[in-house]
Structures are given as C-alpha cells and as structure tokens.
C-alpha cells in the first residue's frame, strides 16, 4: 500500500488571528491487500506545525481524563456518497452501499486511548468490482451492519495533534482509502505576512501506513484587516452638541483577501433563503432565527465553508463534547475609545452605515450583502445584539456607550452577512453630545478584530475566533483654534485664521476640511470652499497629512453686516469631500 499526503481547501489565514483554520490534510492510500476479518494495524497519526495548534479542546474529558479536541480524522469521506435514508441517490449507492463514502458518520468513542478495532472485508460493489471495506471485525452484513468507526478525534499537545489508534485497512486494487484530517486551527499571528503554513505528517507505524509527500502546505498567512477613522471632528468647549457626527470607523478586508470577514457558519445558502439576504445558521439582530442554535451543521467533508466554523458534524454520538468544530460567533470588530472628556456622551451606530461624502447617510439594512450589528461584548454569546435606544441623524440607530465617570468606552459589532468573494467594508458612525463646558481632551479610538486575546494555546474556555490586538490608536479629534478677527474697512470683512492641530500620537491623513457649523445667523464665510450639510467649509490648503502635534492654518474671512458676534462650531473632516 502506498499513501501520499496533500492539502485541500487551503485557506488564507488572517495574520491577526490566533485560531485560524488551516487546510484539510488528505492522506490517500492505494493498493495493498487485506485479509478478511484480520484485525487491522492501528497507527497513531500526528500532524505537527511550526506554530501552536489552537483547536478548541472540549471541556468533557475522555477515558483517562484526556481532553479531546475539535480536530477530526475522517475515513473514506463519509456521507459524500449516497447514504440510504439520508441522502437518496437516484443512480444507486456507489460501489459499496453503506460503506466508505456511502457510510454515515460513525465516531470512535475512544480517541484518547487507542482507537477502535477494525478489519477489512472484500465485497462486490454495485459496479461489479471487488472492494475492501472496513468493518468492526465482523462480516459486513446487508443494509450496512458492522461498519467500522470512521470519525476520530485528535489529541492536541502544543504544536501537534495526534489521532490515536487509527486502523489501517489496505483498499486493495480497486479502491482508495482516504484519511481526511480537518478542524485544525493555529496561531497565525506568529507568522509574517505572506508566510506559508506547512504541516508535517508522521505515523507511529510507517510500515503499516507509509506516507510520501508528508509535508504539505496547509495555509497561507496574510494581513487581513484595514481600519481607518474618518470624519474626525473637533468641538469647541463652549456651547453644546446633540448627536453631532464625531467620526466614521471603517473596517475593510485587505486587498486580495475577500474571505477575511466571516459569518459564524457559511454565508452561502440555498435558494430560497429563509430570510432575504440571510443564510441558514445566521441569527439576525431583530430576533429572527434562521437555523440558529445547536443545529449549525455544515458536514460535508471536503467542502469549503466560508465561515468562522469549518467542518461541523454537529452533536455526533460518540464524540467527546458538543458542537464539534463550531465557532462561537462570526467575525467581530471592536472599537475601544479612550481619553473621553468628562461630560461627553458617546454614541455609536448599532449597525453599519452607508457613507457618502464623509457623512453617514443612513443605516445598512438587514438583507444587505455586508451587514454587521452591535453586540454586548467582545466575547458575548452569539445573538447578544444590542437594541438601538436613540435615533440619530438620517435615521441611524444609535446607542450610548459611555459610562459616567469613565474615560473609556467600547463597542463591538459582529458580521451578519458578508461576501466571501468580494472585498467588504463595514463602517460605523460615532456621535457625541454634551452640554456646556465638558472637559477638554482629544479622544482616541483603537480598532481591531474582536475578541482580542493573549491565549495562544488550545483551551476549552477561550472563544473561537480570537485575535491578536493589532490596533493602533487613532484620534477622534483634531483641536481647532482661531485668532481674533481684525476688521477691514476696505473689504468690509472680519479677517483671521483658523488652526487645526493633530493632538494624537498617530498621523492623520488629509485633506482636511474645516466645517463652520452653527455659524451665526447673518454672518457669511466669504472664502468658503463649499457647503456640506448646509454649513460652509474650507479645505485647508496644501495639507495632505498631519503628524502628531503638527498644525495647519488657513485664513478665514467673514461678512458681518450687523456687527453681531461671529461664532461657529468647528468640525474637522479628514478625507475628501466629493
């Protein structure tokens, strides 16, 4: 018998991810012969990575107190053929009904101590050829009795996962035997951008299971998340604000990584869908459930599932643990706000928003291809959506996230729908309110995947997925100051300057527009660059970037025929206004 190892379904792993799925390892064997009823050799198959394996451990211990993982080894691609009573096949049951790919899942209940015994038997398939099937040792009976277990759970040890006691039955001359290893996750944050993940497959008995090409590449690592903060705004301390736009937070998939953002399970669904735009297995923030719960099953071996969950056989009898392979939730984004000035109320949109010309123009609605919703926390259980309590500008649903007395706040959104073949961007709106004289300060925000973690090993308690905190503080506020206004009898204008300053520790990209909101009635800004939302603005000339602490100044001219006191509330928008 000869065997070779290859990888299938090779994914791109997010460099930020600690629990990234890698591709399945498929060991394909041909030839050899088996003596009917002779107990098959049992081998331990070990997969070794250079990075730590972070596949979930089930909290339930197996025999000997050893904890099994969600990594699985499947023999002969069960259920991919025609399973009588489960997936009827119009053209028969394949070579051997009830066995091999026509078998149902059948878990070996002793993965931690040595597997399950098996023996080979020669049977005649529906095509008239002779095949060797695996039985428990007894003769294969009609209608599928005595099939050998075909699902084994792996035992994780650091950067290795081992499947113990896997029986090896040579397939003979007419068939092949397939060992598919799936459900392995690894800490991709230890790789550099563009690195490959290579696996090393070894067996405890190479004579029984000789493997060539035992070092398949099982993944590619790429940075996946691009974040930005636009519409940064500065507010004067005097006066008050009510739900004033304070920024747009954007999370985008990196170029050539359209599958970086994932739903909990595969977003590709059959037609018709139970709810427009949604897929079985997704839950909506309105409480509609579309297959959500314990029945999140995506169980066809070898299928590419574009979700945080990979192969998920469900609560399969014989396996240790429940919901094997199921992630806890879809990709989440978080924003952590710091240095919030006292007295300022902070609001975020409960869903992602549409943005035009730097302004949030309305909420993205359920059913849109790229939809995300606010959840109660980074690791909150799936479905813990936060209801809107405030309707903001342009009917954007908002919720206040600040806590009185605290200078920090956070928000976390979860991907509900996404496009695995197109670059998605999710944008969320931030607003502030305050009455007179809040404290002075420049709030910052850090954007990253959620939940972030420093647990880089397999555990049963930590969520999947989880990520390294790669965020860099971005400033929500650019301070604005102004000179006095000298009056010119010649131009009959009040003339001065307005200066913006990047108070943060990170550079902010321009161009920069100073918007003169709430300009005193009867006063006209004569050197305006344009008007946005009814307020004049000036584009600060020649400034494409502001380094930390850097300032930029522009002149202003006002017509004030009544000599009333000229006042306005400055807002600074970073980015182009089209």
């Amino acid at each position: 018998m000869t065997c070779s190892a290859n990888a299938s379904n090779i994914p791109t792993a997010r460099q930020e991810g600690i629990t990234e799925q890698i591709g399945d390892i498929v060991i394909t064997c041909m030839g050899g012969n088996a003596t009917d009823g002779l107990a098959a050799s049992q081998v331990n198959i070990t997969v070794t990575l250079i990075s730590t394996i972070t596949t979930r451990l089930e909290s339930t211990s197996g025999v000997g107190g050893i904890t099994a993982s969600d990594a699985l080894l499947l023999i002969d691609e069960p259920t991919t053929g025609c399973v009588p009573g489960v997936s009827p096949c119009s053209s028969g049951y394949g070579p051997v009904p009830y066995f091999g790919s026509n078998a149902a899942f059948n878990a070996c209940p002793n993965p931690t101590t040595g597997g399950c015994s098996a023996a080979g038997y020669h049977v005649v398939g529906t095509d008239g050829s002779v095949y060797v099937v695996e039985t428990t040792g007894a003769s294969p009976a009609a209608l599928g009795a005595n099939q050998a277990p075909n699902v084994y759970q792996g035992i994780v040890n650091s950067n290795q996962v081992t499947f113990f006691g896997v029986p090896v039955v040579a397939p003979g001359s007419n068939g092949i035997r397939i060992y598919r290893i799936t459900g392995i996750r690894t800490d991709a944050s230890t790789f550099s951008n563009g690195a490959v993940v290579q696996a090393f497959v070894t067996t405890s008995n190479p004579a029984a299971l000789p493997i060539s090409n035992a070092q398949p590449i099982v993944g590619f690592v790429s940075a996946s998340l691009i974040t930005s903060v636009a519409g940064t705004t500065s507010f004067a301390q005097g006066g008050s604000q009510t739900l004033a736009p304070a920024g747009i937070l954007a999370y985008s998939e990196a170029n050539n990584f359209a599958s970086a953002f994932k739903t909990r399970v595969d977003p590709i669904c059959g037609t018709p869908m139970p709810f427009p735009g949604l897929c079985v297995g997704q839950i909506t923030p309105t409480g509609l459930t579309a297959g959500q719960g314990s029945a999140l099953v995506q169980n066809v071996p070898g299928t590419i599932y574009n979700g945080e969950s990979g192969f998920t056989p469900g609560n399969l009898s014989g396996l240790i643990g429940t919901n094997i392979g199921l992630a806890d939730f879809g990709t989440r984004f978080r924003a952590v706000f710091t240095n919030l000035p006292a007295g300022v109320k902070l609001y975020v949109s409960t869903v992602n928003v549409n943005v035009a010309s730097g302004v949030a123009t309305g909420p993205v609605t359920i059913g849109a291809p790229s939809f995300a919703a606010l959840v109660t926390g980074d690791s909150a259980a799936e479905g813990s959506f936060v209801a809107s309590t405030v309707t903001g500008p342009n009917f954007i649903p908002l919720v206040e996230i600040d806590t009185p007395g605290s200078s920090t706040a956070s928000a976390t959104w979860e991907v509900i729908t996404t496009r695995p073949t197109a670059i998605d961007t999710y944008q969320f709106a931030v607003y502030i309110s305050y009455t007179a004289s809040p404290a002075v300060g420049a709030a910052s925000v850090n954007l990253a995947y959620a939940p972030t973690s420093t647990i880089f090993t397999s555990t049963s308690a930590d969520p999947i997925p989880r990520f390294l905190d790669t965020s860099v503080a971005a400033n929500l506020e650019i301070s604005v100051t102004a000179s006095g206004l000298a009056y010119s009898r010649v131009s009959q204008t009040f003339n001065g300057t307005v200066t913006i300053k990047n108070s943060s520790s990170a550079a902010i990209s321009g161009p920069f527009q100073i918007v003169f909101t709430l300009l005193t009635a009867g006063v006209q800004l004569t050197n305006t660059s344009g008007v946005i939302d009814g307020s004049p603005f000036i584009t600060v000339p020649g400034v494409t970037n502001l380094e930390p602490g850097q300032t930029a100044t522009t002149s202003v001219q006002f017509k004030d025929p009544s000599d009333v006191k000229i006042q306005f509330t400055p807002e600074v928008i970073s980015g182009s206004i089209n």
Partner: protein
Amino acid sequence: MCRHQMLLGVLLVGFAGLAHADLYEVTVDTSSITGTAGSLDFNFNPGPLVTQDASLQILNFASDGSLAGSPALTGDVSGILPATLTFDNGTALNDYFEGFTFGSTLSFEVSLYGPAVSSPDGVSTSGSTFAFSMFSDAAGTIPALTSDTTDGFAFTTVVNLDGTTTVTPFSSQTTVTPAASSVPEPSSWALIGIALACMGTLHLRRYGRKPGGNL
C-alpha cells in the same frame, strides 16, 4: 488706616509690577503723504470661538499731522485721540475711526493687557486681534502706506492663546518695536495713585502740620 492703605498700595504696586502687559512703540513715516486728508482706524476684536478677556490701549499718540475730530467709536472703546484710547474685546467690532491730515510722522504706543495676556486660562480657543490702518481718503476706503491692498492693514497684533502677542507688519513705513519692559496694567495705576496719595498724606501729617502745631 491710611498707613495700612499705603502698605496695601505698595504691596499691590509690587504685584502690578509683576502683572504682564505687552507694550509696542509704533512709529510711521508719513512723509510721503504729508498733507493728505485721510483717516486712521484702530480696531481690537475677539475671535469666533471661546475668547478670554483682553484689553488694549493706544497711548501717547503724537503727530505733526492733525486729527479731524468727531471720531466714530463702535463697540467697547473709549477715549478720543490724542488722549488714551481703551479697547476691550467684549463685542464683535471694537473700532475707533477718525479723519486725519497726515504730517511727516505719526507715533503711538500699543499696550495689550488683561487675563488673556497675563494669565491665559488654557481652555480658550480664540485669541484677539488688533489692527491699525491708514487711508488716503476720509471715508477710509483707500489704503495708504501698506502692501496689504486687500484689507488695508498697516500691521496687526494678535493675542495668542498662550498669552504672547505677535505683530505682523504690512507697511515698510511703519515700525513696530516691542518696548523694553512690561508696564503695569491700567488698573494698577489706580492702586499706585492710592499708595502715592497715602504717602503724601502721611508726609503732610509728619511735616506739613508742624506750623499748625505751633499755633
């Protein structure tokens, strides 16, 4: 009691000496437009954001030209040239405008003072700006002796948010020179006066009443 006042006055004069005010000496060579019946304009205005209180005085105005009289005062401004003019920044436009027939020279001092200069609060977001302009017409529409033909300013002085002041000149004929040292704010002059009065009274009591005592 007066002795106490004197001590208080001396003490406050001491503080007044610490109080900060910026003083500039301004000299304009107007010889090129001698005899022109023009006009002068001074204004001192707040900014459009949160502005801390500041004041300004025009002191020691002198010229061989002649003021036309009947100046136009707008906003928080008081006084008539050549006497001291006092501006506050409480309203949008604080302006003094007067016709003036130019001689060969013109000079005055600009003193900037008040909380925005002596004790900036660190939270205000606007400064205040003083502008001086000269015109070759009585209506104040044709700028003179300036390169700033758009706005007509000869120079401006900005009170910055950190209490410093910045002069921007637009006229080669105008020289604006910082004074060598700070001067007491006007409110301090009153205290100085009280102190000196007390000192004088005490002096009279001690020496001036001697003859009377002999009566």
